[in-house]
């Protein structure tokens, strides 16, 4: 049974069909890459899955449950978390607090819990959230920068911080929107290693990425999107030589190694 299933999902913005009758499946434990030229609708798919946009048609299921009309916070609680193409960190807060906020799903205490913050049970909860946050920061190797403000990190570090924050949600499905964008080759190599580690810990991954070497080296399967519609799907080597894919990229003058 697939972890996430999209069936004939479309979304329209005015006259523009940004996603068109898309069928997509993320299987348990896999790394699925979603690729396609600029404006193909990849980020829109992420926004549909995480509840930021509502599909005009079709159904989205997560673990057999319809999540079409769920709020983003509800979807996060169910175990889907993400990073953003344009970085969305809590800029004026520390690195550590950014990740602690990611761990929100793992705690319970609300307003009244806050007022009882000195009680042992509440302190225990805070400690367990803090240790989860620290683990996530160690994984992305930002544990030496916990007290810095998020806005003062380098670009590559900010991207890693977004991943740490998303991991603190304890997702079963992680969506990465162009995680390697703006990174140098060394950083990309480390990021690949990190993503493999995340997969090995049992988290399924759906990833959008333009760097073809990165995609080919990492994905179990690839789905190709053009003008909102799926034009190809398969193993990396299958997709690489697919004529429709080559045309979609070359026809638009976008360089790629497919």
């Amino acid at each position: 049974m697939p972890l996430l299933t999209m069936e004939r999902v479309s979304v329209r913005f005015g006259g523009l069909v940004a996603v068109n009758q898309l069928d997509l499946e993320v299987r348990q434990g896999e790394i699925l890459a979603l690729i396609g030229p600029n404006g193909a609708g990849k980020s829109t798919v992420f926004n549909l899955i995480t509840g930021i946009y509502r599909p005009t048609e079709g159904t989205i299921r997560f673990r057999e449950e319809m999540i079409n009309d769920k709020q983003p916070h509800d979807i996060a609680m169910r175990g889907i978390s993400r990073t953003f193409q344009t970085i969305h960190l809590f800029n004026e807060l520390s690195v550590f607090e950014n990740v602690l906020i990611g761990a929100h799903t793992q705690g319970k205490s609300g307003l009244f819990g806050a007022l009882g913050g000195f009680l042992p049970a509440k302190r225990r909860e805070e400690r367990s959230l803090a240790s989860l946050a620290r683990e996530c920061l160690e994984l992305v190797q930002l544990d030496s920068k916990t007290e810095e403000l998020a806005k003062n990190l380098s670009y590559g570090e900010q991207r890693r911080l977004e991943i740490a924050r998303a991991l603190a949600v304890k997702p079963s499905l992680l969506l990465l929107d162009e995680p390697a964008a703006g990174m140098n080759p060394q950083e990309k190599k480390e990021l690949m290693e990190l993503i493999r580690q995340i997969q090995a810990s049992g988290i399924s991954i759906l990833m959008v990425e333009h760097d073809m070497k990165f995609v080919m080296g990492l994905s179990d399967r690839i789905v190709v999107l053009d003008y909102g519609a799926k034009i190809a799907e398969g193993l990396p080597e299958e997709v690489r030589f697919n004529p429709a894919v080559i045309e979609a990229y070359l026809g638009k003058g976008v360089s790629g190694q497919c």
Partner: protein
Amino acid sequence: MIGEYLENLVNLVDAYYLQIFVNIGIAIILALGLNLVTGVTGQLSLGHAAFMSIGAFTGGILTIKLGMPFSVNLISSGLMAAFFGVLIGFPILRLSGDYLAIATLGFAEILKVILLNLDITNRALGLSVPLPNTPIPLPIYVWLTVLLVIAAMILIQNSRFGRALRAIREDEIAAETMGINTTLYKIQAFAIGAFTAGLGGCLYAHFIAYINPSDFGFSKSVDILNMVVLGGLGSIPGSVLGASLLTAAPEFLRFMERYRMLVYGALLVFLMIFRPNGLLGGVSVRQLVCKALGIKPRPRQSLSTDSNMEGRRVK
């Protein structure tokens, strides 16, 4: 007996200074509530005084009609204001930025007009509020409330709940994506802000002994906002300092007579130019104290990060 002792204690203080002292306490309560809404959660409210008026009239009417113990009265005033906070929070907290500010302003103006036309509030004549039914002198009551509100705000800011509020201020979409029900949290923050304003209003009503809906207009809301911004948005010590300074300043400038408000305004402008993030914005009071005492501050990794080290401009 204890009441009598406290009464004598309070009477030792010069009436003029006592009044300033009490006004400062009430201002601190109001500023801390607005700080949670605007400073911590980032929701600009221009109608904070409206919740103060709800508390003031609820408290005043309860004392007049029922003569209930003041503590019951005080809590009822807070709850009534919180109830209205939730009621109007639902529709307007979906708005953001300027729209929210205008909606809160509109709510405050509508409420003022309603209160000016109700029989129970004695219309435009205003209400004379009798002495509260309590053995504890009011100034002590005010400052006990101040301490409780400060404690509550510290607990809130250092909790999962408070972090969620800061996340909303920083980036609402990211906050939602992290599993935070932003609408619910904003309404809760608004309700707490209203609750504390209700407390402040009730204390004010009994201390001043006369209330009129026009006392709680736009300029009162702006006064409170000034305290929060001057102290540093999001900073608890900042709000306390801002409320104290802005309440005391007009008194200490009294010798300037009719130039008083001019100088007061100019001081505000200068402060905002030289410290745009507020007096204590970006200052960690913890670290300052540690430095002064010559001890090394313990890094605060285990529990949440230092929420005092905040303060920024209204977005």
